[in-house]
């Protein structure tokens, strides 16, 4: 009120009126906007695993024909991102290629008052990819550990007894995932035995990007879900120890649990699912939903 000293009292009154009226108008406008509720279609939001994003999308598309009153919205970002969003209660379901950790379950309970519930919806073999021209066929968990872990000392293909065609790039280009990825955590837990990754790996933001980069880089090695294989890459057989038979990441080997890097894919909900969410989950676990798991390149429940 200091900007004009020549004002009379009546000017103040006028100003106050103008302000009051415009404020009222703004409120009326806001009221109009929020008052118009749209209760046409129910939306289920599912977010999380990049490994499962294609699968979740395929489910959503097929389900649109099954139940026309429900829209399923799918987004990725990584298992960690989905779980974080579920703990805040901003989504209905989180897809994850790893299990929820104890502290994540606690934080979800603290924030939303509901206990997250886990549903296994399929299986995946975490495949180790190299370029299709790479002569390597088989790799052991120990070798993977030495390539990817912080203290591991394999940095060149020649250390694995391999010379790449062309031979100019002997250095191994490691392709990894960003730290919010469930695949990243699974690999760290089961291959690196919880040790840290060697810095300097290319950390991709999606399962598909890993396979694409490996497919365009002869000297690369990377890991990703089996559903993302294409004809530019080769999936290596994995042996637990050098000398043991190598096991290919196939549907059969995943189902009989002989593939060392097999894992379950899960969906989390807050509390016991009800209504549309329950219906959707039941459908995912039905023969129709499981057929889509297989079509997407993953392994259905037995």
């Amino acid at each position, binding site marked *: 009120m200091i900007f004009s000293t020549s004002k009379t009292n009546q000017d103040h009154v*006028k100003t106050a009126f103008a302000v009051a009226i415009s404020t009222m108008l703004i409120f009326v406008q806001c009221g109009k906007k929020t008052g118009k509720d749209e209760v046409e279609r129910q939306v289920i939001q599912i977010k999380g695993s990049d490994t499962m994003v294609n699968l979740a999308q395929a489910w959503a598309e097929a389900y649109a024909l099954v139940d026309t009153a429900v829209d399923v919205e799918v987004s990725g970002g990584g298992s960690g991102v989905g779980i*974080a969003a579920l703990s805040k209660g901003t989504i209905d379901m989180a897809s994850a290629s790893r299990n929820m950790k104890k502290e994540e379950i606690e934080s979800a309970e603290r924030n939303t008052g509901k206990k997250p519930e886990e549903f296994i919806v399929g299986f995946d073999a975490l495949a180790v990819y190299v370029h299709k021209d790479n002569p390597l066929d088989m790799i052991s968990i120990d070798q993977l550990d030495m390539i990817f872990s912080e203290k591991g000392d394999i940095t060149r293909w020649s250390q694995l007894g391999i010379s790449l065609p062309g031979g100019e790039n002997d250095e191994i280009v490691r392709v990894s995932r960003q730290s919010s990825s469930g695949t990243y955590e699974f690999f760290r837990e089961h291959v690196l035995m919880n040790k840290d990754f060697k*810095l300097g790996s290319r950390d991709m933001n999606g399962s598909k990007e890993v396979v694409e980069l490996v497919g365009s*880089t002869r000297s690369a090695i990377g890991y990703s879900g089996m559903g993302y294989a294409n004809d530019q890459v080769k999936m290596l057989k994995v042996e637990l120890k050098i000398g043991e038979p190598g096991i290919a990441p196939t549907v059969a080997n995943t189902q009989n649990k002989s593939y060392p890097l097999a894992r379950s894919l899960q969906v989390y909900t807050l509390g016991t699912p009800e209504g549309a969410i329950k219906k959707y989950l039941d459908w995912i676990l039905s023969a129709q939903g499981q057929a889509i798991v297989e079509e997407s390149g993953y392994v259905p429940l037995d």
Partner: protein
Amino acid sequence: MNIPDSTHPACQRRHQRSPFAIGGEKALEWLIRLSGISAILFVLAIFFFIFREALPVLFSERFSLSQFLFSAEWYPTSSVNVRYGTLALTLGTCAVTALAMVIAVPFGLGGAIYISEFSSPRAREALKITIELLAAIPSVVWGFIGLTMMSKLIVTYTGAPVGVNLLNGGIILALMSVPIIVSIGEDALKAVPDSFREAGIAMGATKWQLVYRVLLPAAKNGLLAAVLLGVGRAVGETMAVLMATGHAVQIPHGILDSVRTLTANVAAELGEAPVGSDHYRVLFLTGVLLFAITFTVNITADFVIRGFKKK
């Protein structure tokens, strides 16, 4: 509505204007005043917010500031030994920015000199419109170009194993900074009074001598400001570098190494970090670090511009 009594002496003085017009004018005056102040309020509020989110970690036992600034080991989610070292990320940001400026400054200043001094009026208009268009391309589109086209070209022509690297990010950032450098540089050159040019020509200077000996020294502050704003753009850019640099935490040893920048790191990791965790707070601290860097650049640019206006 309470219409004021027109016999009141205060109203009689200017009865020709309706009370609504006067009231409206006052309201508008306040609104504009508020808009002006809001810029300051927003800056302060943003600074307060990121600092408040970051602050608790500074006093945490698991965190050391010297590690944060001088260690290259970035292991925010390690299950055995969590380390928050941003040196590799800071150097990544510096390296990408420096490379971008090495490419962008000659092109940017060259473009500014050409548009302001050499081109015909018609070409000037066409160029200015095109350059403004270049500035309007969204950064995610630049990132896309880097990820798909540029990376293939780099692999083909340099033999690098991976095309998403420092060189790729540097070229993309340079392309994004050039329009800023050109438009501000051109303004700076235009601000040199024509009497300078006339004097130069009268002394028998060639066009090149005129630019080199007269215009560049006269406009040097403005040109420096143009470059610094370009730097600010490059330091703060996120999406394009996230896509084009390969996202690898390492201190770069050559321009074909992949790097990760501070901004890209925050963008990639903030979504997963549980709110209130150390990781979350360290990412905000990274925000403070970035804020400090861009703030310094912008303030420097501002002082330089002010110096240039006085002349």
